[in-house]
């Protein structure tokens, strides 16, 4: 049991004041940071997975033939030929307007009337998604197709330029996971110090209880209960603050609909993990306190 049952009369063997002083507050801060790190880790991991799966099977063929008419014909021919291939899931020619709109964000004009933008010799782009996982073979087949339909065109696998970003996000997710583990260990260390301090403070009472026949189990349950309750207060406080912060961030995040940021979310599994962490933390605190107390009591006859 996480918080052991102790008869009311036995609870009074420890004074009413909290044993641990600042412990609930330290645990609250650690719990809040743990939950925020866990939320960041889950969000980043999901983002990395989403980006990875989105870019893994996609390539863009860039046709740079100088003649704009020939360039457009090659793009159309390549799209048609690619769409007919069994290894291609979908093939789409990117409209010139779409290209100009994208570039317009960098030129400072999104309405398409920028004379500089209109004068630029933009390449024709064809986005192609592969079927299945055999991507190296599909790339060979695509190269042959491109050589036939649009000689000189360049094939750009999205994984080449977005892959490092996905890897970075994945690394950040692992770092967040490591932070969760470190803060969990720090929380356990705080509980151990609290248990040892409680034993030191109440050594005379413990010695007296021993001498009148109290068992280690009886004494341990008293302290374990008190430490678990103190820790639970801290965990509840830390969880409440973290939940408020996550809801605030989530509310602000809801307005972000473009780019990589839009791929970050917690999902049901992430929320379940965040809800489970405080309960696991209470269980860990109670177990740590119990083992610390038992180990310390064994040193007393």
């Amino acid at each position, binding site marked *: 049991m996480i918080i052991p049952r102790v008869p009311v*009369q036995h609870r009074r063997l420890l*004074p009413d004041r909290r044993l641990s002083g600042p412990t609930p507050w330290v645990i609250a801060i650690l719990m809040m940071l743990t939950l925020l790190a866990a939320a960041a880790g889950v969000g980043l991991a999901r983002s990395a997975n989403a980006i990875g799966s989105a870019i893994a099977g996609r390539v863009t063929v860039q046709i740079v033939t100088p003649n704009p008419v020939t360039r457009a014909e090659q793009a159309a021919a390549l799209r048609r030929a690619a769409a007919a291939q069994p290894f291609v899931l979908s093939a789409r020619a990117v409209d010139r307007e779409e290209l100009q709109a994208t570039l317009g964000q960098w030129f400072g004009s999104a309405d398409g009337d920028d004379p500089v933008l209109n004068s630029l010799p933009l390449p024709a782009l064809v986005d192609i998604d592969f079927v299945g996982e055999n991507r190296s073979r599909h790339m060979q087949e695509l190269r042959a197709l491109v050589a036939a339909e649009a000689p000189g065109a360049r094939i750009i696998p999205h994984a080449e330029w977005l892959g490092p970003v996905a890897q970075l996000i994945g690394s950040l997710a692992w770092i967040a996971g490591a932070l969760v583990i470190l803060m969990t260990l720090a929380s356990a260390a705080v509980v151990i110090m609290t248990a040892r301090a409680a034993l030191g403070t109440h050594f005379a009472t413990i*010695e*007296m209880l*021993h*001498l009148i*026949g109290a068992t280690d189990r*009886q004494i341990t349950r008293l302290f374990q209960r008190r430490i678990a309750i103190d820790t639970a207060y801290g965990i509840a406080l830390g969880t409440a603050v973290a939940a408020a912060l996550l809801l605030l961030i989530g509310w602000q995040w809801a307005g972000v609909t473009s780019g990589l940021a839009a791929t970050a979310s917690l999902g049901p599994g992430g929320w379940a993990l965040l809800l489970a962490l405080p309960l696991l933390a209470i269980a860990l605190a109670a177990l740590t306190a119990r083992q610390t107390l038992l180990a310390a009591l064994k040193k007393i*006859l």
Partner: protein
Amino acid sequence: MTDAAAPRPGGAMVEFDGVGLRYGPDAEVLSDISFNLQPGSFYFLTGASGAGKTSLLKMLYLAQRPSRGIVRLFGEDLVSMPRQRLPGFRRRIGVVFQDFRLIPHLSARDNIALPLRIAGVGEDDLSGPVGEMLSWIGLGDRAEAHPATLSGGEQQRVAIARAVIARPQLLVADEPTGNVDPEMATRLLGLFEALNRLGTTVVVATHDIHLISRIENAQMMRLEKGRLADPTGALRYPPANRA
């Protein structure tokens, strides 16, 4: 499992044989201590300050294992006994400490009730005995007082009540009358004597020579520089066991 509730028929309740005790690397504070305590007997332990009385009592109430020798209590070897079995033996021993060792945040009533609660006695069953004990030690009207608000003598009475409330088989008292007036000392000694008549073996460490003279048939153990002075051999070979 051997029944530790009672010593072997005809056997000693407590047996010390060649016991020595040292703290850390220092010289022994007790050396070659050998004696037997018979069930239902009354013993006084005397000796100058620093002679080792408290150390000897600590081994009697199982707060300390000897460095060497054999200690048997209720017929069982305590030197090699696993520590998880010790609480069961401790519940059969009542201890009155020289410094009382009352739990400061508990009332007099709760301090006295402690051994019964630890032994698992229900609240309904312990209120009667605790109330009687409070009345007997003259603190019936101060049941809810905390130790800090009690005088030294009152604290000592509470400590004695706590030691005897569970009717121990062995009562060990370290200077139990050091802080009470002569009248209360007489009453407390009367309680020890009454318990002794009921079969409790009593060991009282004291400097008070008048106290010793008040108990008939009490045997005296004298410690001198960590060694037991037993010129007559009465402790090692008590009259009841002699051929």
